[in-house]
């Protein structure tokens, strides 16, 4: 909560909040599938991932996370994707190329061999 909110003047905006547990969602899911308790997972996060969180906080986060997944308009991704991501994920624009008449080979007479009779020798 910033100073302006404290003073009751809500201006909105600013960077959206992002939980520090967010990067470990896959890890948390995997632990839950292995029937680990929230307490155990919180301890693992602290020991293995250096992310300190209470087991209640962890549980609340995961509930909120699952709810968000059901909302299609929710922006999960950070608004400023890296250049590398742009290059790899989005297909580059490929313009539709114009067609020109295809070269269809056909037999032509040899221009040197279509002479007329010499009018001076007729």
């Amino acid at each position: 909560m910033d100073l302006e909110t404290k003073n009751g003047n809500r201006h909105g905006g600013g960077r959206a909040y992002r939980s520090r547990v967010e990067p470990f969602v896959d890890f948390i899911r995997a632990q839950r599938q292995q029937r680990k308790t929230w307490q155990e997972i919180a301890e693992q996060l602290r020991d293995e991932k250096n992310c300190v969180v209470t087991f209640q906080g962890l549980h609340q986060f995961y509930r909120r996370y699952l709810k968000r997944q059901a909302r299609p308009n929710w922006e999960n991704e950070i608004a400023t994707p890296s250049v590398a991501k742009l290059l790899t994920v989005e297909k580059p624009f490929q313009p539709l190329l114009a067609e020109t008449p295809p070269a269809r080979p056909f037999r032509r007479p040899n221009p040197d061999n279509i002479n007329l009779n010499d009018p001076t020798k007729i």
Partner: protein
Amino acid sequence: MNTTRRIHLNPQSKGNLGKSFEAEFRTAWLDRLGIAWNGSDLDDRHYTFANRHPQVVRSYELGNGQESKTALLSLFRRVLKDTAPVHIVDTRAQADALITSALEELQALDVCAEQGVRMTFLLFPTDDTESMMNLGRLFLYAGDRVDYVIVENPAKARGDLFKGSQLEKQLQDFGAKAITLPTVTPTTLLAIEKAEAIAGRGLSFAELSRVEAGHLERLLAGEIQWAMQKMFRQYDAVANLLVPTDFIPKEKTVAKKKAEAQPQPQLNYGE
């Protein structure tokens, strides 16, 4: 490839070569064979072809430049949608460049080939160098994408520039065949003009050849009949270049004269 339809075109630039005259015999031959045909008249100065066959020939204003391309686009669109096995285009003089560029820009020869439609160019050799150069250019442009019928008209040209030339040999090498127009007397030609004026419409040569129709005197109608017979025999000989594959006649339109018994005076000396 099986040709399902034919377009006849006489794209040469020079006028007064007998192009419309020849077309009259050709249409009569097709009618005689029972082959449905229709046509387009691009001779916007005379419209002779359309006036003589108003039911089946449509007139176009060829104009110059862009208008001519529009007219030819309209013509080819109609022809390609049509079902008649043969379409005859009668062009006016000085239209060769317009026609060639329209054929090129609309890719008409390729489009026709894709649809089994093949063109036949009717070429009229003359004694005029410019006209013959024009003929050579048409040949160079189209190559083997079209068939060629060479129409010799002794009444208009002796053919000294063309006969025996390399151009003639090359055309023959590309499968071209020649026909010769009959020489019709000026008396009959004038009588045809008079008959058309009296009738107040164009008269096809088929109509004129019918004595009972009364358009021409018996002698003059007889000359047209003779010319018809002469042309029919020649068209029969080049039918593969004029009609789609399935319509090539197996029997001749005009039966050849059987050798008649000649008088044998030496057997009569006893009488």
